Structures are given as structure tokens and as C-alpha cells.
């Protein structure tokens, strides 16, 4: 259905950003808050109205806002489409975004750059909405790059700190490496399909090779944006930004853009099953890798950052095994509880006047009761020891991975002798182990922060945050609980009113089915059982180590696995490896080329060399030009004699 109001969703925050950014400095503080909050809230309300309006008659709202540019056969429109997937994402982004805006009012109270901050936040919402709603790849790319920009600006928000500025730059550049892949993907698809519209691409029939390469290139983009191996390195550093930003951008919304994109282009990925396997494998490896690193981090935000990377890995498992609904469902629930966790950590940091090291926390349940409770709820959600949202969505992913048929026709050899049927179960096993680690490190984080006795310096008096900050926490915690509805198994809710609210049912028809077909109906109970055991096991380990012992648990662990823990605490030296393998050689190459080719070869040898040669010849010739007229004459006479000889004697 063609509508005319869809562009307001990204436009309103954009206007808000412009107002805050251009004149916010001179406006009263309250006005800035009002503009920033109202624009996002309005976007949310428009999104909500549209969402309610979605029905059998109007499965899709579409708007052609304006023709952005067209040349030759390429036509790029600023056009938006609002279907169940993008609609739900709109609500999540603007809704969670609004809560985080509210929270930020308290968090950024004392920062003089608050107007700048709210401008960036609004800009981010605008860009994210463009990404989500964009109905063609280029419009999506606009949002894709826009959120990267906002991420850059907000990570480096406190730019006087060199390290934070560097973190922002690192995020932007790593993202750009991914964007490079995204661009190439767009090129391939345009070359093949002749358009950049997502709907057209999803309905096009592509040869396997083309589809695979295009899907792979786009997936490179996704690994950049969604912090997957090998491009995840920017996300932990991105924690340099203000904590609400970490919650909004680097946990709930922007980083899930890759998952969203893969889900959006489900048809393309389904027609490239090999790439699906790659997606799933990258996802599970990332989940494991970063879960391992997270176990040994002491910065509360770093723990959450690695946890985010790990959870994003789970989402990619979901979309990689063909269960797009599971991946996106985890996206939504993760937005709730991870935002809650980050905001909780923000409240802790705020309450401790900037302390981020969990070694100097402990016993905070007494001082920050609201924060503690909401953090607990969110921790339960992410670890999956009790059946709230995270449990269902994550388990859905793992269950789908175990039973997937997406790889059953993929073969390693031409004769088909080695089918990849073992890949799903393998992913399940590794994923479950990652889930165990998740439970372990999240509880470690919780225990070290809130249990035991306060270990910080005497001078710091922990205090609870104002209600403008705790209220969003409660709402998000509530959403984390309510979110379980999305993940209820079909068998439980079949025929009841709740069925409409389950994600699987809700998104029915939005995604393509993988080539191997959907998994047969499987009973979830075995999976639930294993998941519960895994979750409780993680809790138990953590409880045993940290609840009673506190920090001594870490020492105990370190004593057992000294080398591994050292490596993990140093993030497995990946940053150093990249620095050694990529960054340094690259800069060295640039400097070397400059000195060798530009300065020496082109400028030295040719540009300055030729005049030098001419000057040398001139200097040689000058020796004959000594000013003695008679010598000139003698030479002239010689010349005359020679000429006479030539013309008169020989001629």
C-alpha cells in the first residue's frame, strides 16, 4: 500500500538532530531534551500506528519519497517499506531508542556537550530508521554508513582523550572495510538484476555463483557492522563512548544491522546455501571466541561488549541455518535485555563516579537496588537459566541449528559423498558450550558487581541513579520478561490468542525457506532440558567461584589455567596481531612508497633529474665560454676553415 507518511519516521529524528546540533548550544537545556525526545517519540508513535495498521489487507506500507539520483539504467530512490520485519525493528529501535534518550537525560546531566550528544543520538535514530526502512540497497547503505558515522562520533564523544578518539576512528575504519564488501555486493546485484531494489532482488532468480559471491560480499559488510570474526575488534573498543550509546548503538540496534540485512535478503542467502554455512560457522566461532574472552575481562562494559559480540554470533547462527525468524527474534529480545544490561552498567558507573572495573565494585545490591534487580532480570534473560525471553530465543536458534536441513545437500566433494549434515549438530554443540560460557561470565559479572562486599575506595560513595534513569531500566527489564511471548513454541500456544504474538507466526511469509526445507516439527523439550542444564551449570561454576570467594575466584581460576587466562585477559592478542600483520605493514608501505617512488623515482630521477642533467651540460659548456674574445675568434676561424674545406675542397 502506497502511503505518504513513512518518511516522517527517519525525518523527524533528523530534524531533531539538526535543531540540537545547529542551535542546541544556545537553547535552554530543557528545549534540547524536549526536541530530542519528542522527535524520537513521535517516530515511535508513527511506527506504532503503522504497526497496528499492518494486517491482511495491508501487509506492506511502501512510500516513494523522492528519486534520489538516477543515471543510465540505475535508478536510486529514497523509498521506504514497512512490513512486519522492518515494522517490528522500527518499534524496537525507536522504542528502545526513546528509553535510552530518557535515560541519557540523567546520564549526561553534567556534560557540557549534551546538545551535541543528543544531536548525534537523534541522527543515529534517523540513520538507523533509514537502514531498517530503506527499500533498496543504496537507501539501506545510506543508513548503514550513517549509523557508522554516528557510532564514530559517539565513541569519540570525549575526543580530548586520544584513546577514545582512536577507538572511534578504529570503529569507523573497520566498519568501512565491511562497507566495502557491502558496496561490492550492491554492484554485483545491480549488474545481475539491473536494479537495487530489495524486493526485486529477492524475487530475482540468480545463478548460484553470482548469488554466492554477492551474498558473501554483503556478509562481509555484515561482519563489519555486526562485529563478527574477523572484524569484531572495534566493538570492545567502542565502549569508550558514553554508556547509553553503548546500549543503544553497540548492543541493541546498530550492531544487529548485519543480521537484519541477511534476514532482509533471505531469498538471496537461501539461493546461496554455501554462504549460509559460512554465515553460520562465522557466527558460532564468533560466539565461542568472544564468550571465551569475556570470561576474563574486568571492565564491566568490556564484558558486556564481548557478550554482545557473542550474542550477535548466535543471531548469525540463526540466520545461517535458515531459521531467519529465530535469528531476528533473538535480535529483538537481545535488544531488550542487552540494553537493560548496558544501562544498568551505566547506572553502576554513574553511581560509582566513573568506575568501570568490577574488581573495585562488589556488594552494590545494597546501594543500587533498582539497578540490581533489573540487572538481575536481564542477566537471567541472557543466560537462560530461567525461561524468560533470552532463553527462548537462544534456544530456538540452537534447536533450529541442530535440526536444520540447510546443509544437508551441501557437499564437500563433487560426488556428494561427504555431506555437511554434521555441521548443524556441530554448531549446536559449540553453540551450547558458548551458552555455558555466557552463563558463566554473565554471572561472574553479576556476582562481582552486586554480591559480596564493596571493594572500591572509601572516597566513592555508591548511590542509586535518579528515576529518569531507573525508569527505563524497569521498562526494559519488563520487556525482557514479556519478550518471552515471542519465543513460545508453536505447540504450546497453538490455537490460543498468544499465537499471534509469537515471532515465528508473526513473521510467517516474510522470509524465504532454506533450500533443504524447514526442519521437521521437533520437540523442544530435549533442547530446553540441555539448555537449562547448560545455563545452570554456568551459574553453578560462577556461583562456586565468585559468590563466596569474590575476586579470589579469579585467582583460583588463574592458578589453574594460567597461560590461557593471561591470553584471554589480553583479548587473545588479536589487536596486536592485526597491528603487526596489517596496520604496521600498511603504514610502512605508504611511507616506503612515498620515499621510493614519489620522492626518489619520480621527483628525484625524472622531475628534478632532467633539469639537473641540463644544468650539468650547461656547466660543462660554460668552460668554453671563458670570455676571451680571441679564443672565440680562433674557434670561429677554425670553423670557417672547416666550412671552406667542406664546401670548396671536398664539394
Amino acid at each position, binding site marked *: 500500500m502506497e502511503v505518504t507518511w513513512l518518511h516522517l519516521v527517519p525525518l523527524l529524528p533528523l530534524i531533531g538532530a539538526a535543531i540540537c546540533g545547529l542551535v542546541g548550544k544556545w537553547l535552554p537545556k530543557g528545549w534540547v531534551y524536549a526536541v530530542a525526545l519528542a522527535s524520537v517519540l513521535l517516530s515511535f508513535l508513527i511506527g506504532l500506528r503503522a504497526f497496528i495498521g499492518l494486517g491482511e489487507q495491508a501487509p506492506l506500507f511502501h512510500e516513494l519519497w523522492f528519486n534520489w539520483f538516477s543515471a543510465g539504467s540505475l535508478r536510486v530512490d529514497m523509498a521506504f517499506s514497512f512490513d512486519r520485519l522492518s515494522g517490528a525493528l522500527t518499534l524496537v529501535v525507536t522504542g528502545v531508542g526513546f528509553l535510552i534518550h530518557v535515560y541519557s537525560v540523567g546520564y549526561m546531566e553534567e556534560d557540557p556537550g549534551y546538545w551535541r550528544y543528543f544531536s548525534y543520538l537523534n541522527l543515529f535514530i534517523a540513520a538507523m530508521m533509514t537502514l531498517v526502512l530503506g527499500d533498496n540497497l543504496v537507501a539501506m547503505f545510506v543508513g548503514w554508513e550513517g549509523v557508522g558515522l554516528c557510532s564514530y562520533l559517539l565513541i569519540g564523544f570525549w575526543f580530548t582523550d586520544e584513546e577514545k578518539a582512536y577507538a572511534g576512528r578504529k570503529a569507523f575504519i573497520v566498519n568501512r572495510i565491511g562497507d566495502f564488501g557491502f558496496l561490492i555486493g550492491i554492484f554485483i546485484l545491480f549488474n545481475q538484476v539491473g536494479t537495487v531494489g530489495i524486493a526485486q532482488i529477492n524475487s530475482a532468480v540468480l545463478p548460484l555463483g553470482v548469488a554466492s559471491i554477492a551474498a558473501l560480499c554483503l556478509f562481509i559488510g555484515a561482519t563489519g557492522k555486526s562485529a563478527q570474526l574477523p572484524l569484531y575488534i572495534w566493538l570492545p573498543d567502542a565502549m569508550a563512548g558514553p554508556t547509553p550509546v553503548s546500549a543503544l548503538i553497540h548492543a541493541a540496534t546498530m550492531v544487529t544491522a548485519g543480521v537484519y540485512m541477511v534476514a532482509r535478503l533471505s531469498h538471496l542467502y537461501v539461493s546461496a546455501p554455501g554462504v549460509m554455512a559460512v554465515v553460520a560457522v562465522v557466527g558460532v566461532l564468533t560466539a565461542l571466541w568472544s564468550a571465551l574472552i569475556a570470561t576474563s575481562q574486568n571492565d564491566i562494559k568490556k564484558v558486556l561488549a564481548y557478550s554482545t559480540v557473542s550474542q550477535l554470533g548466535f543471531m548469525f547462527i540463526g540466520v545461517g541455518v535458515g531459521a531467519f525468524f529465530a535469528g531476528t527474534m533473538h535480535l529483538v529480545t537481545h535488544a531488550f535485555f542487552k540494553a537493560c544490561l548496558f544501562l544498568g552498567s551505566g547506572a553502576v558507573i554513574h553511581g560509582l563516579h566513573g568506575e568501570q572495573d568490577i574488581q573495585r565494585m562488589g556488594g552494590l545490591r545494597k546501594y543500587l537496588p533498582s539497578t540490581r534487580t533489573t540487572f538481575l532480570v536481564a542477566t537471567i534473560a541472557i543466560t537462560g537459566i530461567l525461561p524468560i525471553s533470552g532463553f527462548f530465543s537462544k534456544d530456538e536458534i540452537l534447536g533450529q541449528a541442530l535440526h536444520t536441513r540447510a546443509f544437508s545437500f551441501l557437499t564437500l566433494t563433487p560426488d556428494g559423498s561427504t555431506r555437511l549434515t554434521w555441521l548443524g549438530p556441530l554448531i549446536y554443540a559449540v553453540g551450547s558450550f558458548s551458552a555455558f560460557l555466557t552463563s558463566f561470565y554473565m554471572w561472574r559479572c553479576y556476582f562481582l558487581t552486586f554480591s559480596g562486599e564493596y571493594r572500591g575506595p572509601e572516597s566513592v560513595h555508591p548511590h542509586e541513579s535518579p528515576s529518569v534513569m531507573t525508569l527505563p531500566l524497569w521498562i526494559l527489564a519488563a520487556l525482557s520478561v514479556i519478550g518471552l511471548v515471542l519465543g513460545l513454541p508453536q505447540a504450546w500456544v497453538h490455537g490460543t490468542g498468544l499465537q499471534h504474538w509469537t515471532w515465528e507466526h508473526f513473521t510467517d511469509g516474510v522470509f524465504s525457506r532454506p533450500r533443504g526445507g524447514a526442519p521437521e516439527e521437533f520437540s523442544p523439550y530435549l533442547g530446553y532440558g540441555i539448555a537449562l542444564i547448560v545455563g545452570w551449570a554456568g551459574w553453578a561454576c560462577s556461583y562456586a567461584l565468585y559468590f563466596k570467594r569474590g575476586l579470589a575466584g579469579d585467582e583460583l581460576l588463574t592458578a589453574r589455567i594460567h597461560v590461557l587466562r593471561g591470553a584471554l585477559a589480553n583479548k587473545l592478542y588479536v589487536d596486536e596481531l592485526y597491528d603487526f600483520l596489517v596496520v604496521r605493514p600498511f603504514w610502512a608501505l605508504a611511507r616506503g612508497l612515498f620515499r621510493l617512488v614519489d620522492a626518489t623515482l619520480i621527483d628525484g630521477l625524472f622531475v628534478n633529474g632532467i633539469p639537473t642533467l641540463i644544468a650539468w651540460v650547461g656547466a660543462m659548456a*660554460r668552460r668554453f*665560454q*671563458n*670570455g*676571451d674574445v*680571441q679564443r672565440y675568434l680562433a674557434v670561429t*676561424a677554425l670553423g670557417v676553415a672547416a666550412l671552406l674545406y667542406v664546401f670548396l675542397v671536398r664539394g
Partner: protein
Amino acid sequence: MDFFHAHQAQHYLVLAAMLFALGAAGVVLRRNAIIVLMSIEVMLNAVNLTFLAFSRFPLVPNSPMGSFLSGHAAVFFVIATAAAEASVGLAIIIAVFRSRTSVNVDEFDTLKL
């Protein structure tokens, strides 16, 4: 004196060549700028002599008289030019002598940079 008549032009030409060589030798050998100038005058006269000799003994016979006489016109111009050259040259010698108290050409080498 058949020989002289049969080879009249050659006699004049050889004389001109000898005078020219004499003048050139003076220019090459002498240091005194005034003598160099005078040697140049000798060379100019040698050239005049050739002009006149060819005017009297034309290579292309039976041309209108004017074409023979253009040699005379040329000599006229050479004399005029020589006069101009001598005056300017001598003026330069005076000017140079004022600044360097010398008229020796091998000491005038400031032009070499």
C-alpha cells in the same frame, strides 16, 4: 702580359684573400683593442675589394648595367657601416679604458658570468 689579363679577376681575389687573412691574423693575435679594430677595417676593405672585383668581372655576362653596379652600392654601405662600427667601437674602448685602465682584449672577460 697575357697572364695578367687572362686571370685578372683572380689577381684581385687573391689579393683580397691575403688582406683578409692578414686582418684576421691581426684580430686573432693582437691584444690591443685599437689594433684589433684596425685589423677589422683591413678585413672589411678586403671584402670591398672582392665586391668591386666581381662587379668589374661579372660571373654572368650581358646583364643590365645596374646589376653590376650593385656591388658598388654594397661597398658604399660597407663603408658607412664601417664608419659606424669604428665610432661605436672606439667609444666602447674609451669607456672600457675608463673603468679598467687597459685596452687589452684578453682582460675583458667579465661577460663569462
